[in-house]
């Protein structure tokens, strides 16, 4: 997890004819949380998914521009996406643990990347569960199915799983929108903890959540990056009227 720059340069995403993300250039400061906000269909999730090439799986999707992580442009076709997704973890809206034990959910990634030693795997599992504040809740039942956990615990398990392959960047697509307020608060607290080690990009529809958890906020509208600034500035005195109208709940 060495220090490295992470930014996009004129990144465009097309779905067929539709220009879904329009020449977006933005940087993600290391070990900070960047929130992407905007109305549905504004391109924020598409943009997030291009940061680890998830759009490759969508037929008709085409990407132009660059995403730099350190000295590598990950849009380049020569990029090994398996290796890329080891460096960039992803957490989805709905918790999606594997149909496996809690232990195996976390051990799966490292094992796939070649870790065979049981003691080493044990350590990874414990570390990741501790980082996501799950360890005390599940340490006595690591062999139970991950699906037996509550929704909030499942989501933390998924975050723990993404940490297991030692990424430096975490992408989160509305990670708390399917959770109750207490589980949401735990995820938000976790995000604040995790940013000490990881650079985090989060898409959220919850304006207050963006205001609470992020250091910087980007407002997307119709595929354009309208405004990107310190979160405090964005929520107290944004420069653009459309940003003000959106965060004030007056459109979108």
């Amino acid at each position, binding site marked *: 997890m060495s220090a490295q720059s992470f930014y996009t340069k004129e990144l465009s995403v097309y779905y067929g004819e539709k220009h879904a993300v329009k020449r977006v250039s933005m940087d993600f400061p290391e070990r900070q949380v960047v929130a992407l906000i905007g109305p549905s269909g504004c391109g924020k999730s598409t943009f997030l998914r291009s940061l680890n090439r998830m759009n490759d799986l969508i037929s008709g999707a085409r990407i132009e521009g660059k995403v730099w992580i350190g000295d590598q442009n990950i849009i380049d076709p020569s990029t090994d996406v398996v290796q890329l997704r080891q460096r960039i973890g992803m957490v989805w809206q709905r918790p999606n643990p594997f149909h496996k034990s809690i232990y195996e959910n976390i051990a799966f990634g490292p094992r796939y990347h070649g870790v065979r030693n049981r003691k080493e795997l044990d350590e990874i599992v414990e570390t990741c569960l501790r980082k996501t504040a799950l360890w005390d809740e599940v340490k006595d039942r690591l062999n139970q199915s991950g699906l037996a956990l509550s929704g909030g615990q499942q989501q933390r398990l998924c975050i723990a799983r993404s940490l297991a392959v030692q990424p430096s960047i975490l992408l989160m697509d509305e990670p708390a929108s399917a959770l109750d307020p207490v589980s949401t608060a735990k995820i938000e607290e976790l995000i604040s903890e995790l940013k000490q080690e990881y650079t985090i990009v989060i898409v959220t529809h919850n*304006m*207050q959540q963006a*205001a609470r958890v992020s250091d910087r906020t980007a407002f997307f509208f119709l595929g354009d990056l309208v405004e990107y600034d310190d979160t405090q500035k964005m*929520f*107290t*005195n*944004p420069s653009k009227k459309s*940003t*003000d*109208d959106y*965060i*004030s*709940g*007056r*459109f*979108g």
Partner: protein
Amino acid sequence: MVTRREFDIGLEQLRNMLVEMGTKVERALAESMNALENLDVEAARAIVKDDPEINRIEETISDLGAKLIATQQPVAKDLRRILVALKISSDLERMGDLSVDIAKVVIRLEGQALLRPIGDLPQIAMIVRTMIIESIQSYIDENVDLAYKMAKDDDQVDAMYSQFLRETFTYMADNPKSVAQTMHMSFVGRYIERIADHATNIGESVVFLVVGKRPDLNQ
């Protein structure tokens, strides 16, 4: 454009209450100056009696502002609208108190005759009354130019007040027996000048509301 009906009604109520408060404060100053010129103690007592009404509006504004913040989670300009309404209402409340202080001077002078004309005090008060109205107007219209005009008016008030004090001190030196009453008159000048400062504060609040940065107009 999506409207936020409940919230917009709340903001409108805040605006209406500030207008009501501003109107009452302006009238309190006008009436206390009338009472002073005519040494009308009855009128002065009525002003003192009416002041709790101004305080009550301030409390209502404060409660409504807290409710809107708690229930509507305002951000950006909406949030500034509420923060600024709270600040303006507290300035207006002080301006009401200062008008009452003028009325109390009249009550203290009960049974006395004015030893000398009160000089420029009515003219200064007239400028300040205009400032009160304009300060509220600048909030309603979110008019930064009008807010900045307040700063210029305030400079004029300060200059006239200084001149008034010089004359008053000279008069006191020449008429030692007048000291008590003349001191009261200089307090009145001070109260009026303070009201102008608060009106200028309101102008500053309006600039903050509109541009999101705090100017210092009270220099």
